[in-house]
């Protein structure tokens, strides 16, 4: 079964903000979406063509590809409340799968 959440996280090598973003996102997903998410981390320095395809300007940038609609979050994801609201994870801490209308 396809995980219900699919994220792409675009980072620039192992810059401090990139590490912060990876750590923040992994913690959040494990806490709220354990077993129900897929995360691809893309290094734009190694794969600029991926950044071109997705039209990424800033790093870190998090894309929520699933569920629709697509959501774009810019920053190192240290502002957890913004990430939770942006991704529509408000009700996810009890395993209650629900899309943000």
């Amino acid at each position, binding site marked *: 079964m396809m995980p219900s959440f699919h994220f792409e996280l675009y980072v620039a090598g192992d810059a401090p903000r990139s590490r912060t973003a990876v750590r923040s996102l992994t913690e959040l997903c494990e806490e709220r979406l354990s077993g129900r998410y897929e995360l691809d981390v893309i290094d734009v320095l190694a794969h600029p063509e991926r950044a071109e395809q997705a039209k990424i*300007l800033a790093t*870190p940038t998090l894309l929520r590809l699933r569920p629709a609609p697509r959501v774009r979050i*810019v920053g*190192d994801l240290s502002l957890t409340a913004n990430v939770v609201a*942006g991704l529509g994870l408000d009700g996810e801490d009890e395993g209650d799968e629900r899309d943000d209308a």
Partner: protein
Amino acid sequence: MTKMERKRAEKVPSGIPGLDLVSKGGLPSARSVVVAGTSGSGKTVFGAQFLAAGITEMGEPGVFVTCEESPEDIRANIASFGWDVPRWEEEGTWRFVDASRNLDDVPVRAGGYDLAALLARIEDAVARVGAKRVVVDSLDALFSRFEGDAAFRHELHRVIGLLNSLGVTTVLTAERDSDYGANSRRGVEEFVADNLILLRNVLSSERRRRTLEIVKFRGATHDKGEFGFSITPKGISVIPHLDIGHDRVMSNDRLSIGNPDVDAMCDGGIFRDSVMLVSGAAGTGKTLLTAAFVDSAARDGERCLVFSFEERREQWFRNAKGWGYDFHQLEQDGLLKVVSDYPEVATLEDHLLAITAEVETFKPQRIAIDSLSALERVATPDSFRKFAVSLSAYLKHHGITSLLTSTTPTFLGGASPNEAHLSTVTDLIILLRHTEIGGELRRGLTVLKMRGSRHDHGVREFTVDENGMTLGAPYETPFGLTKEIGVLRPSTLDVTDAEVDEDEDAEEDADANPDGEANADTGEGPDTDEDSWR
């Protein structure tokens, strides 16, 4: 300032006609130039042309970073200039970096970020095509997404730092809110631009006038001031002032104007490469003198280019035939080319470009423009003045003997306001006037000024028949011909024109004064004039 910056910067050809003259060779190589202007001022065209010319003329690939329009829109919008971007993309000489806004998602902010992804994309694109030129269009569209973020200036520095380190020459466009305001919208030129070009699109007297100004080129020279430019079907074309002929050796050859009597009044004829103004009301004989001028050119075996702005070609040929000139034959012989156009079909800048284009192809030794004053209809006084200076300097630079006519607004003479501008850039002025004497309308002629030569100060009545113009004896009784002359002075006409300086007025007083010895003007005249008109 580093040692590198103090060294005189190398330049790369901009690919924009006229700009390399004004910028003394092009844009500073391996540097960034901010091109700022209001919306619709031609910034995107400037950038695209810089890349297109790099590919077609220099064999230099380019990268276009578009932050506002999609690549699809850019391709479509600039195809009309003949720039085949899809083909260049296929060849691998043009590459887009699409930094345009994603309409489908509005980013949420959640912590600090930088533009590393954009930098990586630009660097990748530059490496893939081996780019030497990069355009970022526009900085404002890019940074509008990060409004309120103090870090954006830092990021902008990183973008420019990267581009400079890649050794590419970069054009960055920036939006301005007003044509004469102090800053671009975000003040980018203040802190990033060593090199700044402003494009303006000014509405003046209900006419649009586009100008380009190089505000600074660090470590490099350039011409100062605003230069008119035009967006032609081939892209931007800048009209340099072209006042480059001062150090040219003045010719002492005298040529016939085409009428022995008038030649005699001018001490034997006009100097080669001088510019002559024939001023008169409708029907006083300006076109006749023009025809005589063409005929005398042909007799000397010289090619003459004629611009007729008041009459259509066939009408012009028919008029000439009435005076006994078969100009169709001259055209067949390649000694004459007549171009007829309505002044209203183009802007003044376009007309100047059309004139220079004809000169480049036909390579005439003489040129006649009948009438130049018709072009006043498509110009503001200020742009007409600059046009007249550019045209005169261009013609002199090419060593072309020129006859320009000016039609006065009333039938009984009187100067048109712009004659003041014309008189300062011409070497010889002939006045033609209708005058009522003893219940008859007669025509009179006088030579008002002639630089570097004696001339007859008399007023001569003349008649016109199928043999052309015949001058009578010098007129002894008051003819009233010169009563309007005082009006020619810019000081009385141009009091609203702040750029007329005091020296100019003094010079003009001397020129326009038909009495006394004031006409013993020397070759220094044109320098004074053109400097002050800049």
